[in-house]
């Protein structure tokens, strides 16, 4: 199937076939990463600009490794020490990036929708590395890849996503990637941290809401725990971190309610002792480190599909 998408902004409107194509390409990239020389020339001569207006280490490094594995030239523009700090508008930054001539812009920004703004105003291909609360499509795809590798066909599998759903671009992108692959999602977390529309019967297709985490985890096939930001308590959304950890933290006892081999995932970075017990984070069920490895491969796959295939190089 010829890849059609110019950008990767969110996977909410992707077909199952498109998601499958990314996962297949990811497998090929996993193979390349397993070689002694983890390099392929698919993006040689191409420039990938990493524009991270919101700070991040793991995602940015992951994209950098992915781009370099494909032999691309990589430039980093980060929030600190850049014009972004001096108050340069997003519009000015886009104009500058366009003038500098990148082939691919990988961007992370605190404003939901920022990648659409950029994609409208540049000829480069845009990959969204996280926009506000809205989407983190590469995380959703790497979680789908990880779960498929662990569980096989995801049809009929029930996956729990627990945490601050309202503010989570990871939750939204996990839903967007996993539901088309046949999985059903149970959302769990404090009611104040789940969108009101998703608590009263209008949950997204393929998802339900269960505030009681114990009940949600009973017989589940996998769980994805989300990072809790301490600021939520200050905003009056939570009485205390302590109560959150006791009610919605992934403890050994809770995790044991799932199916015997059900894995535990977390997008990182983790607050051990808050949303996840240290023993669970580093225990036998944990696929957290595998997620990181798969992340590089998924990002290689997308860079390849957008800018490295013969068709992409021609256009």
């Amino acid at each position, binding site marked *: 199937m010829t890849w059609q998408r110019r950008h990767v902004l969110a996977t909410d409107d992707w077909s199952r076939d498109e998601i499958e194509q990314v996962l297949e390409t990811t497998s090929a990239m996993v193979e390349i990463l397993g070689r002694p020389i983890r390099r392929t020339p698919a993006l040689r001569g191409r420039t990938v600009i990493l524009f991270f207006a919101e700070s991040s280490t793991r995602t940015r490094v992951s994209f950098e490794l992915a781009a370099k594995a494909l032999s691309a030239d990589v430039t980093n523009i980060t929030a600190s020490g850049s014009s972004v700090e001096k108050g340069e508008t997003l*519009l000015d930054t886009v104009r500058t990036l366009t003038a500098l001539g990148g082939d691919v812009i990988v961007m992370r920004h605190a404003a939901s929708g920022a990648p659409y703004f950029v994609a409208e105003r540049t000829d480069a291909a845009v990959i969204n590395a996280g926009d506000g609360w809205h989407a983190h499509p590469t995380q959703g795809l790497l979680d789908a890849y990880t779960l498929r590798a662990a569980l096989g066909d995801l049809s009929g599998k029930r996956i729990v996503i627990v945490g601050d759903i309202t503010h989570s671009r990871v939750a939204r992108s996990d839903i967007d990637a996993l539901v088309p692959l046949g999985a059903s999602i149970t959302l769990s977390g404090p009611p104040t941290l789940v969108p009101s529309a998703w608590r009263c019967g209008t949950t997204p297709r393929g998802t339900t809401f269960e505030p009681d985490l114990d009940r949600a985890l009973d017989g589940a096939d996998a769980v994805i725990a989300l990072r809790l930001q301490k600021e939520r308590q200050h905003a009056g959304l939570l009485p205390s971190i302590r109560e959150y950890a006791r009610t919605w933290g992934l403890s050994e006892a809770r995790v044991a309610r799932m199916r015997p081999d059900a894995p535990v995932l977390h997008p990182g970075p983790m607050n051990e002792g808050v949303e996840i017990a240290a023993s669970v984070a580093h225990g036998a069920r944990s696929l957290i480190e595998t997620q990181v490895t798969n992340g590089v491969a998924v990002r290689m796959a997308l860079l390849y599909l957008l800018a490295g295939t013969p068709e992409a190089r021609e256009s």
Partner: protein
Amino acid sequence: MADLKRDAEKRGLITAPGFIDLHAHLREPGFEESETIATGARAALAGGFTTICAMPNTEPAIDSPGLIAELVARGKAAKAARVLPIATITRGRKGKELADLVELAAAGAVAFSDDGSPVADAQLFRNALEYARAAGRPILEHSQDQALSADGVMHEGVVSARLGLAGMPAAAEETAIARDLSLAKLTGGRLHLSHVSTAGSVELVRRAKAGGLAITAEVTPHHLALTDEWVGGSRAFAWEDEGPRATPYDTATKVNPPLRTAADVRACWAGLMDGTIDAIATDHAPHASTKKDVEYQEAAFGISVFETAVPLLLMGVNAGWGTWDRVVEALTLGPARVLGIEVPTSDLVIIDPGTAWTPTAAALRSLGKNTPLLGRNLVGRVIAAYVDGQLRHDLSAAPTP
């Protein structure tokens, strides 16, 4: 006038008394990059509005007789739509102390409003409703609980949940309206509710009126046609199942009150038709591109409405959601009653109901190009407007620079 009307009607055109707009932001003084009194008054005419009420949230805010006089003078100099001044409720629009309401009315203010903001202090708002009776002018209130809607940039609902944007729940408007109605009852004050936008708000007003409360309410043209789905890229009107699509997060869709659900739009039409809502008012809110060409959360709230109001209303009527007669009433008699004035007899608007057109930035007279209707096919357009018997807007003539 009678000949003009007969002539137009023979050609299949619609005529109506010049429309009266209770709610327009002309941005002058202080924000002239977004609009001036002159450009706003000309854009109003192009939309069929021959009388417009200028909201006082300018810089400085219109809270003194001298500023009122200046506004009136500049309005006259524009030689376009008649400009009526609204004064602030509170000094400097700061929400702390009453402005000199009696003096402001004597200087020509037709109403009082802190629009853009509610009067958050209930005791002060009570005082305003009571004191304004001495001035004999209505209080136009922007009903919004700012705590409930803090940080919100669109309607809180299914679409905001999907787009990952902070929402303003319907309750933020409804709790404020409930407060305002209760205070109107307590004080006997002349309350007018600006830009009502939710089904719940319409119902609150309906019940208050049924109970005998003498209050009035308005709705905007965009709250009678557009939905929160437009923030996600839809360009289907509330009465359409499908429509064209645009890029999501278009800041031209960012407005306060926010675009609501199709069910809310339907309820607003129903409220208009049964008299719960007295007037259609544009809340014309032009913005320079620097205020809108930014991230969604950073963008200013507001839509440039004048020149696309008529097609939106006509298309809603054609979809069967209301009648044209009632729409005209809500654009003329309704606002006139709110202000306590007569509908000017020698103002006329001529509309071509069948013409298909697509708004472009260049075609808009307003300096504010911030409308999500750019590039959208519309049906119906104002082709001429007469003020005091004089032709002041003629679509076939070149636009005045």
